[in-house]
């Protein structure tokens, strides 16, 4: 059981997804390009051209303008820049802006940035989240309406990294705009999964002879709730390696008029707000991957929705409790998160890993320790429940055979994890970030709100 099979079944695409061949080709080609994009000579101009063409591709894929694209070293840096940079930029314009509104289920890149602001004279106010993992709009409206002149920023992700819940970002953005507060959206988990609208239908890339036929399909997959780069949004984070590009590159879309203060200091290569030599090859590969991901998202979302539905049924049959919104329109189809009552998630992960199946405990880890999921804790799940969840995430390489392998391995892994049981840890696992309890006090198991009314064993999930 300790020997992984030669080609592991990869069900952790939300952590990182395999490099797309087209992105790899673009990366390798550009890697030979000598020249600093900021240099004035011919090699420099050639490298700069790669960057600027990539910028145009990224803008096109997301419906933005090239000038709105700020390349960064990845999603984390883009989030830092958006949250910290916007807060300080707005405060420098008006010292009264000393509060930030944050959803409690953000990625640590956002939460820790907000914490940093909290330690630097800002007041951090949390949005309320329902048991289904979605931000409560009514309460968000009230929070925004309370002294909006003191708000520097509101930030809310497009899709939750653990539950797959699509956040009502469009509605929130409209509210924020009405109150005159800029909204930043971390869209890292949304790109190419139907939750983030594409820009104009992209023209096929010149070197894309091997691109799939569906490249030009119109984006209209199964989740219908869609986040788009509209005028209501001030900033939006995207990441390279979540869409099949390389690790180490990402971008922040930022409105021209958004006052950003830098969080890294140096040459100010990107819009005088982001410093560091631009990695032309990484950026070129990122643009290719993002374009391909956005162009194929309709077809991919339909395909993954079927696989996710099958996975959800299987998990439910095995006694697992699915987490997240039950309405398929309110969730992305590539993330399936399930609680396994009576199991520690790291025990399950170990057995599945030994069987050659890669999935995730869904939570951040310190030195490899699987911890209670802060997202599930924020949704009101108790510590034992928050340590019983596994996240399976599908992606562009996932096929039915992957789920077949999971079907075969799950029963034994479950039996072992149940035998090992759950430890009774009363107090120490209190949610790191206690939040307003969603609805009633959480029980075990937690039925999705619509499950009782629905005869569908998946609770109406896709």
């Amino acid at each position, binding site marked *: 059981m*300790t020997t992984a099979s030669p080609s592991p079944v990869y069900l952790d695409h939300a952590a990182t997804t395999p490099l797309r061949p087209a992105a790899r080709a673009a990366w390798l080609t550009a890697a030979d390009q000598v020249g600093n994009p900021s240099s004035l000579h011919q090699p420099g101009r050639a490298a700069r051209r790669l960057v600027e063409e990539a910028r145009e591709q990224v803008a096109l894929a997301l419906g933005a303008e090239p000038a709105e694209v700020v390349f960064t070293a990845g999603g984390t840096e883009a989030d830092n820049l958006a949250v910290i940079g916007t807060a300080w930029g707005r405060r420098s314009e008006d010292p009264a802006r000393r509060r930030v509104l944050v959803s409690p289920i953000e990625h640590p890149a956002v939460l820790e940035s907000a914490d940093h602001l909290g330690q630097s004279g800002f007041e951090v106010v949390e949005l309320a989240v329902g048991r289904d993992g979605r931000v409560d709009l009514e309460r968000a409206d009230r929070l925004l309406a309370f002294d909006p002149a003191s708000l520097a920023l509101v930030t809310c992700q497009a899709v939750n990294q653990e539950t797959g819940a699509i956040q009502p970002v469009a509605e929130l953005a409209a509210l924020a705009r009405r109150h005159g507060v800029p909204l930043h959206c971390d869209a890292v988990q949304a790109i190419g999964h139907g939750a983030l609208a594409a820009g104009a239908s992209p023209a096929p890339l010149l070197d894309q002879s091997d691109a799939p036929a569906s490249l030009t399909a119109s984006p209209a997959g199964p989740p219908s709730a869609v986040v788009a780069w509209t005028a209501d949004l001030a900033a939006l984070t995207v990441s390279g390696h979540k869409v099949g590009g390389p690790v180490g590159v990402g971008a922040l879309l930022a409105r021209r008029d958004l006052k950003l203060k830098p969080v890294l200091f140096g040459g100010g290569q990107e819009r005088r707000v982001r410093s560091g030599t631009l990695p032309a090859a990484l950026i070129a590969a990122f643009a290719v991957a993002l374009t391909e991901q956005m162009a194929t998202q309709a077809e991919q979302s339909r395909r993954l929705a079927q696989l996710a539905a099958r996975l959800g049924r299987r998990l439910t049959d095995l006694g697992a409790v699915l987490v997240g919104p039950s309405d398929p329109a309110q969730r992305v189809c590539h993330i399936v998160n399930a609680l396994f009552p009576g199991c520690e998630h790291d*025990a399950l992960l*170990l057995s599945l890993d030994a069987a050659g199946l890669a999935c995730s405990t869904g939570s951040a880890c*310190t*030195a*490899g320790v699987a911890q209670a999921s802060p997202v599930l804790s924020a949704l009101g799940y108790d510590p034992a429940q928050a340590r019983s969840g596994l996240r399976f995430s599908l992606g562009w390489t996932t096929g039915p055979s992957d789920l077949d392998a999971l079907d075969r391995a799950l029963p034994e892994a479950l039996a072992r994890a149940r035998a*090992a049981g759950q430890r009774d840890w009363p107090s120490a696992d209190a949610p790191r970030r206690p939040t307003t309890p969603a609805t009633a006090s959480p029980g075990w198991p937690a039925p999705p709100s619509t499950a009782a009314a629905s005869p569908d064993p998946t609770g109406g999930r896709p």
Partner: protein
Amino acid sequence: MSRLIAALSGGVDSAVAAARMVEAGHQVTGVHLALSRHPAAQRTGARGCCSLEDANDARRVADVLGLPYYVWDFSQEFHDSVVTDFLAQYAAGRTPNPCLRCNELVKFAALLERALALGFDGLVTGHYARLRRRPDAVVELWRAVDQAKDQSYVLGVMTPEQLRHCHFPLGDSTKPQVRAEAARRGLTVADKPDSSDICFIPDGDTQGWLYDKLGRAPGAILDADGVVLGQHQGAFAYTIGQRRGLRLGRPAVDGRPRYVTAVDPVRATVTVGSRQDLRVDRLWAVHPLWCDPLGPGTAWAERGSPTPAEVDHERTTRPEADPGGTTQAEVDPDGTIAVEDGPAGGRESPNSRPHGPAHPTAPPPGPAFAAQVQLRAHGQPLPAQVRWLGPDLIAIELAQPAHGVAPGQTAVIYDGDRVLGSATIDRTGQDVALARA
């Protein structure tokens, strides 16, 4: 071939232990125990195995050996059963050994139980000790060949069932051999210094740590006649036998060093006296744990018959026949002591019986048997008579007095190089003759 969990601390010993089991053909999975709730990012000095740097060292060992690697979080168990007990013992004026508690309640209890439940056959660690598997399935615990590194003392809390599932492949090796082997195998931890002191007190300042956790409770430092010689900031921070850090203004009348001879947190007094006042030859110890499933009765019953030495590890050289040979076979006439399997066979939570009897069916008080008793991790074995006074109490009569023995210390009982069991010292005393001397 067994499926084993190798407990990888990030040090050289556990690395080589795991490597040897891999080489012997076992399927090994590496597990690093996260014992600290708030691990430091880096090791400071040579202490501890609980920093993120140590966890990373363990990961690199697993990489080199090609093992799957996981970190298991036992910080809660460690805090509840080791750190809390450590504080409570000190607060009561005792001197606990947290390594033994960790072995008893975390490593060979919580960790082993989890490994077994997850389908593994057992546990391999880098402890220097030998196991001998007898044909009757009893596993005996013996001292390591390298007497300087021997860690059988801290394993004296292991139960028969725990021993049955454990492998200590370093028991036949010396530390220099292990370091050389690590280097030969390309394990980068070959030169890593030995960890020392108490892992959860990273700066090694136990007294400061205790003040920090327990607060200050000032009181008087007295001599045996009750004369106040000085002040202290908390009696709990002193240990019987302690000589340094007393900060007494006046020298002793006889000009000799003074030692802590008694600690009384209730009256907030620390008593000091001469080295002679530290001498004890009677120990009463509670919470006995026996490594043999039948308790010590068989140990003396079987004396004289050669111990079958089916050795744990193929590479282990057989220890010489037991050199002891002094123990008398004294057993009840019917020769039976009704005892069932040790408690580890069950699924009891370690916390449910922190000080309960070692055996579900308590054996009756027995006659004394001769043994050797070791009172510290690197102490000398002392000849003694051990008498079983009740299910949870033994008396130890030392042939020669020992100095500076504190309640809370663990007495590990040996028969020559074989570990019979252990008990926690509760009280100490002097024989009348010794008191007069």
